[in-house]
């Protein structure tokens, strides 16, 4: 374990009745960083966060916060949630309708009377209120506040005790796009200004990429990949990460070198030229970001534009290549009509290791994560023993499961 790790989870598992919601999760969160926990709806993000908070008891595993065990299954240690130095901002804030802003923010201080002298209570409250720019609203009740103000009250309440760890469960999802952007940068600013460690749940990949130092991508109760945003974006380890984080096209293809150039041969025989792919001749799944495809008009090409969407700053084209449809993002000046032929070249391709054909097809047929995230969480049995081993193998070093060791 790295000395700088504030939070460490080992083999954390939780199921509700027969539904395994979080399965053998191993991860660490570095001191003083903002880490995003990302994944589709229902993948267990909230459950994992609530286990760290102590609101949910894990079935097995260990959780440490700054070298102190918060939970351990054997011998049993379970620090009750109100004794953990953890602040939490809930998705719908959980504000108290009968308490003013000031009373709400002072509440955590009075809850730990021993540590704060009476005289200090108001000043600490006013400090944190000005930090979140709520000064002047002390005597308002929650229903007299706007959405963004409510959210900042919840943040102030979580911060006033100077917790070692701050947990945020999709705190921005109830805000409009403008406010969301502002709160994002405020959060970022907070982490830089104070020595706090933040774990931030979101299913918005753009948000996660924009503000976090580290990202943890979850799917079906397991961790798919952990790393810096650019690592996850550029070198996804699994097809799921490629698609969920980078919104990548996934191609099940055979890479081959011909005349010094690399090409991808798709199962139906179509061929795509690509640069920057440094792999031997191998059959695998490859991820291509929509903006890494360049288009060139070519009437002789059999690849045709089947659909297009104007995005304001770019064009999105759907291009049919053999049996597959590729999503392509092109500069705003590159205009092609539907039905016209284009020549494609791939500027950057990442190899997404997926060893069994069974999972390959499974992952390839996975619905678009954006659509998935708008669905209500579905009850389903998540994962099995076999799947978890596959994930162990592709997990980065240092985050390996105990079960496979």
């Amino acid at each position, binding site marked *: 374990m790295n000395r700088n790790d504030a939070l460490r989870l080992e083999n954390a598992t939780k199921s509700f009745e027969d539904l395994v919601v979080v399965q053998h999760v191993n991860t660490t969160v570095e001191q003083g960083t903002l880490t995003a926990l990302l994944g589709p709806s229902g993948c267990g993000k909230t459950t994992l966060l609530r286990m760290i*908070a102590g*609101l949910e008891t894990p079935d097995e595993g260990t959780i440490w916060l700054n070298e102190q065990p918060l939970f351990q299954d054997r011998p049993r240690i379970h620090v009750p*949630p*109100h*004794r953990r130095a*953890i*602040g*939490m901002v*809930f998705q*719908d*804030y*959980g*504000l*108290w*309708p*009968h308490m003013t802003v000031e009373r709400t923010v002072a*509440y*955590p201080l009075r*809850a*730990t009377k021993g540590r704060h002298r009476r005289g200090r209570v108001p000043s600490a409250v006013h400090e944190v209120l000005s930090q979140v720019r709520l000064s002047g609203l002390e005597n308002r009740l929650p*229903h007299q506040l706007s959405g963004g103000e409510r959210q900042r009250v*919840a943040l102030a*309440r*979580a911060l006033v*005790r100077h917790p070692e760890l701050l947990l945020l469960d999709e705190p921005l999802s109830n805000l409009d796009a403008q406010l969301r952007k502002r709160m994002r940068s405020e959060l970022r600013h907070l982490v830089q200004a104070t020595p706090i460690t933040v774990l931030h749940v979101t299913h918005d990949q753009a948000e996660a990429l924009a503000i976090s130092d580290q990202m943890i991508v979850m799917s079906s109760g397991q961790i798919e990949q952990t790393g810096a945003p650019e690592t996850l974006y550029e070198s996804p380890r699994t097809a799921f990460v490629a698609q969920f984080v980078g919104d990548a096209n996934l191609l099940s293809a055979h890479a081959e070198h011909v005349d010094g150039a690399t090409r991808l041969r798709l199962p139906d025989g179509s061929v795509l030229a690509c640069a920057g792919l440094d792999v031997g001749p191998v059959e695998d799944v490859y991820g291509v970001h929509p903006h890494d495809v360049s288009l060139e008009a070519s009437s002789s090409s059999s690849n045709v534009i089947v659909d297009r969407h104007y995005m304001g700053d770019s064009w999105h084209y759907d291009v049919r290549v053999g049996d597959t449809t590729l999503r392509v993002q092109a500069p705003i000046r590159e205009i092609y009509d539907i039905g016209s032929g284009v020549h494609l070249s791939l500027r950057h391709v990442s190899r997404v290791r997926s060893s069994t054909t069974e999972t390959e097809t499974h992952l390839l047929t996975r619905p678009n994560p954006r659509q998935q995230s708008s669905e209500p969480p579905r009850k389903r049995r998540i994962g099995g023993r076999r799947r978890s081993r596959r994930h162990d193998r592709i997990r980065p070093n240092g985050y390996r499961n105990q079960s496979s060791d």
Partner: protein
Amino acid sequence: MHPRHRRMGFQINGRRITLVVAISGVLILVAYPLVQLVHKSFPLSNYVQQLQNPQNMRALWNTLYISAGITLLATSLGSILAFLMIRTDLPLKRTIRSGVYLLFLTPAYISGMAWIQLFGRAGYVTRWFRITMGLTQTPWDVYTLEGVILVMGLNMIPMAYMATANALRHADPTREEASIMSGATPIRTFFSITLPLALPGIIAGAFLVFVHGISGFGVPAMLAMPTGHLVLTTQIYSALGHYDVRMACALSVGLVIMTSIALWAHNVLLRRNRFASMPQNEQTLLTYRMGALRWPIALILTACLALVALGPLVMIGLSSLLRAWGLPLIGSNLTLANYRAIFETSVSARALRNSFLFAFGGASCSALLGLVVSYIVHRTRLRGRQLLDVLASAPLAVPGPVVAASMIFAWSVPALRLYNTPWIILIAYTVAFLPYAVRTTASVLKAMPLSGEEAGWMSGRSWASVFAGIVFPVIRRGVWAGWMLVFLMAFREIPISTMLYTKGTETVGVLMFILKTESGGLEVVSAVAVVVVVLTAIGQAVVGRLVGIRKGIL
């Protein structure tokens, strides 16, 4: 003229006729008797005179005393029970819920009868206690105001329970979790978050219990009147007994003012509750973990409920099987003769038949009137509909003895002499239970989207045809449920028929009130009580089926 316009014109006329019929019906049935009552209570000097009567003052204080006691007892026990059931991980919840439901099914008067049979001067427990302890005196007395508080308070636990449970189901567990994450202990969280947020709902429930406390007639008449403890309802009964019209009217008006204030407070609290959130899933509400106390608490609760809910029913059941009341409870003394007797002897058979007919007629009239009233109130914009709503729910604030008194004054005038006929009981039942029919129908009507009806009109059907073909089939279950509720309340009701019956129109309530029949005493009345409880259980099950209340109630 365009055909559609013609149709619209006709439709509005049809509605207007209905409105006129409904308003005049409600005015004659509800408003006219109350106006009579107020009229006969004047001049104001009469009130002063009644207040100077020390008996009335005692009755007033006693009423407030027992109502406060009942409210305190029922609300505290009911709320604690609801909290444990809704917000904690207590085991044995199904059993405990059944206990509360059993208590809900037992009319207060019948529990009172059972308590007398157990703890009265000759009660089974009293006798056993005296013999084992070698006492000549009974260490307790159920014929007191405290006895009334105990019987009625325990009986109203389900009412308080429902109010608190409803408030707690609308709690948002995230608020408690936010408190815990702020470092507050579960106990502090309970007192600073959970309790303050549920309090408006709990107090609203308390006001409802209070209303039922001051309106109660049967139990005070049985336990307090014999020993000279007066309450307002029994005072009205005695005033009518010796034709003191002015006293009966003044006390009735005073009683209605008190219940109206309490009901108003109840409504304000319910409506202004800005703390309520969406109703939550049962599982997510289990915020409080009882740990090692889970089983002890559950077992204690189960034992207490078994005593309070099951005990009286077992007593009534056993005594209904006794050859004669007071005999030892052993096999050779048990018989089914009492049941044969109540169906065969003329007075009790007549009472059963009368109660059935009155309840059936009253339920049908108030269900029909309730249907029309709630349709007008919730589905039209016709002027006067608010007045209709207020009038139709007014009887909620009118205790049974006052309904009876107002009926006597309204229907003994020469032109409308219905007093001493069966009709007056039928009308009284219709009036007294109309609000329950209106509310049940209104709740299903409000849940039905207006677009269903509008689509019917746009298909070119008349208002009446849309009502019969589209609206009624959808809300039918609510109407039947309202009918059933009124039937059950009317069948077991005591004060109205006790004050309005004459020879030949005796009811089940009258039999229970005088605690004897021509074929026997308590053992036969107990058999009648068993019939009432069984009928109530069946009826409530039907109501639950119809509108799915069973789960909602408890």
